[in-house]
């Protein structure tokens, strides 16, 4: 029997969460005051959890590596947040959101968690609106919705193209309020570098003050890791430059199992790479697929300018292959379709690794509607175009500007060039229903955990999950653990476990400076990224993955022999920060390849070339792989696989079709 107990409550899917809530152990207010909780990361999950827990009376410490909690990368989410409100009267329900998420995740997510997510989704919107988050409204004053990939209802709430920003600022303001009230101690420009465990339980962290370089010890009865995903293992991704796996990886090495590391999401609509200097990729919101049409020329290697290619010589391949969902198929499907076309030689742009996202049809269509509303009879084509542009500008203006800024091309006149890019990681620390990892007292929330999105996340669901975990799940589930901790006094940080943990961190830092190699940290990061993208990216195969594992091992050795970390330990030193993060990415990269190699099937974001249908669709293997792969770190870069079987009781498992 596996070591994994997912602790899913008994009962029917609709009742699990409500029954759990009414039976979970509680901590009385007086005891909460003496219980300390450490929250690492200040994004949607971290800020919302810290604020909610502090409101309840716990003593909370929050850590983030940025200069302010408001900078966390949740801020960059553009499109929106899903919630089963059914405000549009289009047949949405908790069950449908649950169903869409499970299906979108290619039947590789845990039913209990996903249903809970769908249940609390509506409360998130209520909470955010009450906080003063200015979500988009209709003229009647009611909230507005738009549609997103992988669904047939309009359940996405948004604030222009800045939904993540607005939601994060809402959570941040709730957090700042608690800081002002003295209930939360904030440690910005601090990076967690080790977890401290005592008698098998998480009891604190070692953090580095990034300004002074001083190592600090912090005790907590529980530690919450809300540290986001690990997409930067690919070097080029839509993640922020600082996004890293270090906190989760240190936890993993201290006993937390890593779930489904190979599930990475490649977002179909990003601005293509322009050269070697590229440091990050910029996402064009999925909402653009609402109105834009994606195409490539029907002729291979067509060098004509896009506007010179006549309509009948264009291949709207998504509409052709998936008539039911068209341009709104889920991300993994859209990404693979783009790769397929480019690999087959139909790609566009200088690199030939791009497809067109065209707004001409939308501009024409909106132009006609606007002419009608303005009462302009017989508008000229120029007028129509102008009206259409105005509407498009109102809806997507900031995105279009961003595109023009980066590429130097005007997307109102020429189709945008897009290509898939690494965006999100569905894998993460394995957690049970309580969001607790395999280390008692250590939790993982938001993108840092693996639980809700299966093998592929639907658009506008990341914000939903981060806030669900922080506002509405952890405040209840943490009681199950802390109710038994009320007799544990705060452990002084001169305890041996803290001393040892700090020494480990210090020795790694010393090691970096001792190498005095010849190559920069970024050099190694770029090489790692290339291996990962080429061999563990959008499509994977056995041969490539085996090669990748060898290459990564060699890279790891070289890194520890030849990296050059400039500056000193006791000062503000971004190079040292990067070195630690890249060291962890290299180890993670190997595990991702091992996981991808183990999973002999294609599902969601994990596409193994050996396992596809004749039409090139993913071929899932429910008989052999309907499980969560949870990897236990055995030290020295070796891992043991534990399987959590996935049971589908509320949903009938089926082939995932968007045709």
């Amino acid at each position, binding site marked *: 029997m596996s070591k994994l107990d997912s602790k899913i409550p008994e009962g029917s899917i609709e009742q699990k969460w409500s029954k759990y809530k009414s039976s979970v152990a509680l901590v009385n207010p007086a005891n909460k005051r003496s219980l300390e909780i450490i929250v690492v990361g200040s994004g949607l999950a971290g800020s919302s959890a810290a604020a909610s827990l502090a*409101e309840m009376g716990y003593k909370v410490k929050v850590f983030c590596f*940025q*200069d*302010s*909690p408001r*900078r966390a*990368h949740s*801020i*960059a989410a553009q499109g929106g947040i899903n919630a089963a*409100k059914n405000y549009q009267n289009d047949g949405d329900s908790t069950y449908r959101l649950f169903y869409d998420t499970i299906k979108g995740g290619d039947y590789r997510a845990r039913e209990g968690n996903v249903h809970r997510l769908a249940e609390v989704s509506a*409360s998130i*919107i*209520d*909470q*955010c*609106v*009450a906080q*003063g988050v*200015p979500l*988009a*409204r209709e003229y009647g*004053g*009611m*909230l507005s919705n738009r549609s997103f990939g992988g669904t047939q209802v309009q359940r996405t709430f948004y*604030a222009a193209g*800045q939904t*993540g*920003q607005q939601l994060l*600022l809402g959570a*941040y*303001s*709730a957090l*700042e*309020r608690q*800081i*002002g009230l003295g209930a939360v101690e*904030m440690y910005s420009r601090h990076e967690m570098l080790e977890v401290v465990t005592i008698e098998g339980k998480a009891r604190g962290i070692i953090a580095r003050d990034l*300004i002074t370089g001083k190592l600090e010890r912090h005790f907590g009865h529980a530690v919450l890791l809300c540290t986001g995903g690990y997409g930067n293992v690919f070097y080029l991704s839509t993640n*922020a*430059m600082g996004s890293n796996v270090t906190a989760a990886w240190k936890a993993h090495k201290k006993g937390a199992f890593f779930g489904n590391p190979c599930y990475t999401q490649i977002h179909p609509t990003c601005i293509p790479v*322009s*050269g*070697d*200097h*590229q*440091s990050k990729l*910029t*996402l064009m919101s999925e909402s653009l697929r609402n109105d834009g049409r994606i195409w490539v020329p029907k002729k291979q290697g067509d060098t004509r300018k896009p506007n010179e290619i006549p309509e009948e010589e264009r291949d709207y391949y998504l509409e052709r292959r998936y008539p039911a969902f068209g341009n709104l198929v889920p991300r993994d499907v859209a990404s693979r379709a783009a790769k397929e076309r480019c690999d087959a030689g139909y790609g566009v742009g200088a690199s030939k690794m791009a497809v067109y996202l065209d707004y001409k049809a939308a501009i024409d269509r909106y132009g006609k509607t606007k002419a009608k509303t303005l009462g302009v009879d017989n508008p000229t084509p120029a007028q129509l175009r102008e009206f259409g542009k105005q509407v498009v500008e109102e809806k997507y203006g900031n995105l279009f500007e*961003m595109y023009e*800024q*980066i590429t130097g091309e005007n997307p109102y006149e020429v189709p945008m060039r897009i290509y898939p890019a690494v965006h999100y990681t569905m894998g993460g620390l394995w957690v049970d229903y309580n969001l607790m990892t395999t280390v008692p007292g250590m939790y993982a929330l938001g993108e840092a955990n693996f639980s809700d999105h299966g093998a592929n996340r639907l658009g506008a669901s990341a914000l939903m999950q981060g806030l669900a975990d922080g*506002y509405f799940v952890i405040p209840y589930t943490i009681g199950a653990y802390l109710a038994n901790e009320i007799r544990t006094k705060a452990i002084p940080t001169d305890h041996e476990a803290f001393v040892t943990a700090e020494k480990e961190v210090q020795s790694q830092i010393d090691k970096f400076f001792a190498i005095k190699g*010849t190559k*920069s940290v*970024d050099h190694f990061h770029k090489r790692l990224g290339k291996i990962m993208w080429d061999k563990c990216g959008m499509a994977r195969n056995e041969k490539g993955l085996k090669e990748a594992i060898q290459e990564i091992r060699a890279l790891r050795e070289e890194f520890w022999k030849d990296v*050059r970390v*400039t*500056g000193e330990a006791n*000062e*503000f030193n971004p190079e040292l920060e990067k070195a630690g993060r890249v060291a962890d990415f290299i180890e993670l990269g190997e595990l991702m390849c091992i996981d991808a190699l183990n999973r002999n099937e294609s599902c969601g974001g994990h596409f193994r070339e050996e396992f596809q249908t004749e039409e090139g669709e993913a071929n899932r293997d429910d008989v052999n792989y309907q499980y969560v792969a949870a990897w236990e770190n055995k030290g020295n870069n070796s891992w043991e696989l534990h399987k959590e079987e996935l049971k589908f009781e509320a949903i009938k498992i089926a082939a995932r079709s968007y045709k």
Partner: protein
Amino acid sequence: MSGNMKITLKVWRQRNTKTNGQLVTYQLNDISPDMSFLEMFDVLNEQLITKGEDPVAFDHDCREGICGMCSMFINGRPHGPKSKVTTCQLHMRSFKDGDTIVVEPWRAAAFPVIKDLTVDRTAFDRIIAKGGYISVNTGNAQDANNLPIPKPDADKSFEAAACIGCGACVATCKNSSAMLFVSAKISQLALLPQGQVERVARAKNMVAQMDAEGFGNCTNTGACEIECPKGISLENIARMNREFYVANLKE
């Protein structure tokens, strides 16, 4: 390498808060017009590391213009010569081959330099902690559509809320005033029905904290509005003034 622009950079180097700094000149060849401004700094740092020198420390994170972390004063303007973009969104095609570019950190007593181009902006957080919120504990909320908000109000509130807290307003203001930042938050909440309950206390407490942090006084030159990468309007400062007057009249 990928391009052929030659750029002369004059960069402010300062070891830490306590020491003095100075401008140091660097020569860069092979710069591509497709590079972002920060990617040019990556190239510079790569060169410095190869030579065993200390790379330039600068704040940056999302590199897509939303986190508000990047903060360079470029040729005398925050976030460089283009309007409505952050430094990370600025591309080298906005410069010419052979240009000399002077890069300095945000300069304000309230934003002490940490190292090189990195400054400490936690003063902004402390201002928000004094009232930049609506006191609603998790779980207290009513149904979101029970509170209709006229679209124009919601839109205006959103425009104010779009502030990314980068501090360009302070950096460019001849007085290092933080009024655009503070007024954006006060406006966002004052425009919404949810924000009415704490309106008086919010205006007084946030302004008091802003003053305590050592920001200068607003003289309505309007530089902040022009340099704000998110186009936050001066209208917000006028609204904050009104909020503050009313708050003082009431209490």
